[in-house]
């Protein structure tokens, strides 16, 4: 898969070719892209706190 088909396959999950999408809560308005980034940051923070850290080799 090369060229246009590859680009179409990669672009399919997130189609950015159009007006932006927004969500609102009262006087607050957020773009969906910003909401996704905030969610990613929160998930990364929770994962960093909960996931076990691999143990390194003991250097004696």
């Amino acid at each position: 898969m090369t060229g246009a088909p590859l680009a179409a396959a990669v672009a399919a999950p997130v189609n950015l070719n159009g007006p932006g999408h927004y969500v609102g809560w009262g006087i607050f308005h957020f773009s969906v892209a910003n909401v996704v980034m905030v969610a990613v940051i929160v998930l990364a923070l929770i994962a960093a706190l909960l996931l076990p850290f691999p143990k390194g080799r003991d250097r004696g």
Partner: protein
Amino acid sequence: MTEQLVRTRPTGGWTGSLRRGMERNLPPAKLLPDEQPSYVASWIYVFGVLTLTALLVVVGSGIVLSVRGPDWWHTSAVGHYFNSVHLWSVELLMVFMSVHLIGKFFMAAWRGRRALTWITGAVSFIACATTALTGYLIQQNFDAQWISTQAKDGLNAIGVGAYFNVMDFGQMMLWHVALFPIVVALVVLLHILLVRRRGVVPPIARAGAAGDRS
């Protein structure tokens, strides 16, 4: 040799006092440690290094873009690639730095005489965000036009629009590639040196055990 330095009467001049200050505060073992306390074995402590790594990729890809110029990054496949690397490394930089900032906030990372470390970290966050803003302004696309026309109202409202004019492409370009990178580099360097000097902040529960005074 060390005894000689201690016994020798301190000489005048800023070079001598700077050298003595560096020897006292940043000995090689602190500057390049090969061991860390056991509490550092946690993913939350990784995000500082991830932030630095992303910053290095940002700087590296930015140097390539500035050497080849906009005609190259807008029209060639390799130019598009480096343009994308520059953009997405900035996105990762801000994500990593946000997690680092939130994690350190809830650790109260200013404990143990680390106030200046915390302050330089906060300033470097603001410096990186401002540098990123100027980068988005010089994309030469509709996104850049939208951001500049939105940002100008806020900046005019706080009275800095005449000095920091987001509608002035030339000023934003030069601040992005010349002025702000110097500020970011200096503040981040100071932040790293302070982290090395005071050590990584222990978790609150371990603070007493690690001999850390809050």
